[in-house]
């Protein structure tokens, strides 16, 4: 009995040795989602490049120094940063299998996300009413394209978040829901990373002119 066991275990241990060396992820979803995020990163890189090239072409119109309200941007940044850590708390509550707490922190994250979006929409409406809409100059076109795309991502992230809250409520903390939470976690933190680029490159450096 023990003999056959060791014989059977012989090739298996060498197999596990190889697995340790290469370590194929058992579930490819995380890696796949990461690849999607990287492609999204390229999309933003194009928009950043467009802003970098066109961001000083004002067509005799207003510049960033005239338009940007840095206090508003600082508040927006705070909202997004806070939503990042509250999402982290949601993940931690999920890993300790506390459904109520998970839903609570997801809700808080969603509220911060919505606060971010409403401030951004307020800013856009304000700009357009001042006559600084996307058609005013190449600078504003690239500005609205870049910041608007980011806002669109936050919008869809928020929709996803609400959907996930319903799924969590219905099915509990299952394997699938954990996977979904992890994906949204990557998405949400990635949006925060993009926002770092936006407030540094567009808003802060845009007001230096």
């Amino acid at each position: 009995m023990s003999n056959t066991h060791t014989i059977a275990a012989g090739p298996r241990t060498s197999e596990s040795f190889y697995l340790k060396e290469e370590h194929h992820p058992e579930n490819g979803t995380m890696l796949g989602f990461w690849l999607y995020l990287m492609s999204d990163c390229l999309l933003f890189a194009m928009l950043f490049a467009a802003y970098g090239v066109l961001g000083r072409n004002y067509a005799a119109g207003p510049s960033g120094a005239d338009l940007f309200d840095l206090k508003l941007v600082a508040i927006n940044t705070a909202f997004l940063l806070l939503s990042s850590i509250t999402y982290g708390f949601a993940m931690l509550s999920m890993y300790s299998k506390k459904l109520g707490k998970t839903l609570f922190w997801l809700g808080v994250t969603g509220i911060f996300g919505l606060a971010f979006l409403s401030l951004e929409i307020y800013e856009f409406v304000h700009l357009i009413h001042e006559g600084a809409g996307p058609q005013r100059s190449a600078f504003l076109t690239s500005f609205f394209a870049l910041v608007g795309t980011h806002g669109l991502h936050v919008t869809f992230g928020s929709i996803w978040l609400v959907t996930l809250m319903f799924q969590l409520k219905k099915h509990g903390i299952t394997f699938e829901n954990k996977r979904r939470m992890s994906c949204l976690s990557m998405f949400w933190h990635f949006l925060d990373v993009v926002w770092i680029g936006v407030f540094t490159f567009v808003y802060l450096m845009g007001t230096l002119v």
Partner: protein
Amino acid sequence: MSNPNHNTGHETHAHHGDHGDHGHHDDAPHGSLYDYVVGFVLSVILTAIPFWLVMGKVIDDKTVLSLVLLGIGAVQIVVHMVYFLHMTPKSEGGWNMMALLFTLVLVVITMAGSMWVMFHLNTNMMPMPVNMNSMP
């Protein structure tokens, strides 16, 4: 009977946590409360400094200020990657890092290349011939 034993074994392993390398079911690496709090505090500091530099008009030289802003932004992106996205060179068997590096190469080529080419184009085209403007 052996199954629950198996599970608890994994649980303790996961708690010792080399970022979920052992975990069957926790497929994504996840950080601790400590990670998130450290990341958050660092982010707040790294966000407050550039806003203070610009709004308080601390540095007069715009080139220097721009470089400082970009530098702090880059550091904050790394902080987010490490503490919020839990990137390690080992996550997903190293493929995460490979994809990230490849993307970064493409991003640098795209950004630097576009600006380089377009600004050269701008400087070369800038002195427009006067007669061209007055042409009907």
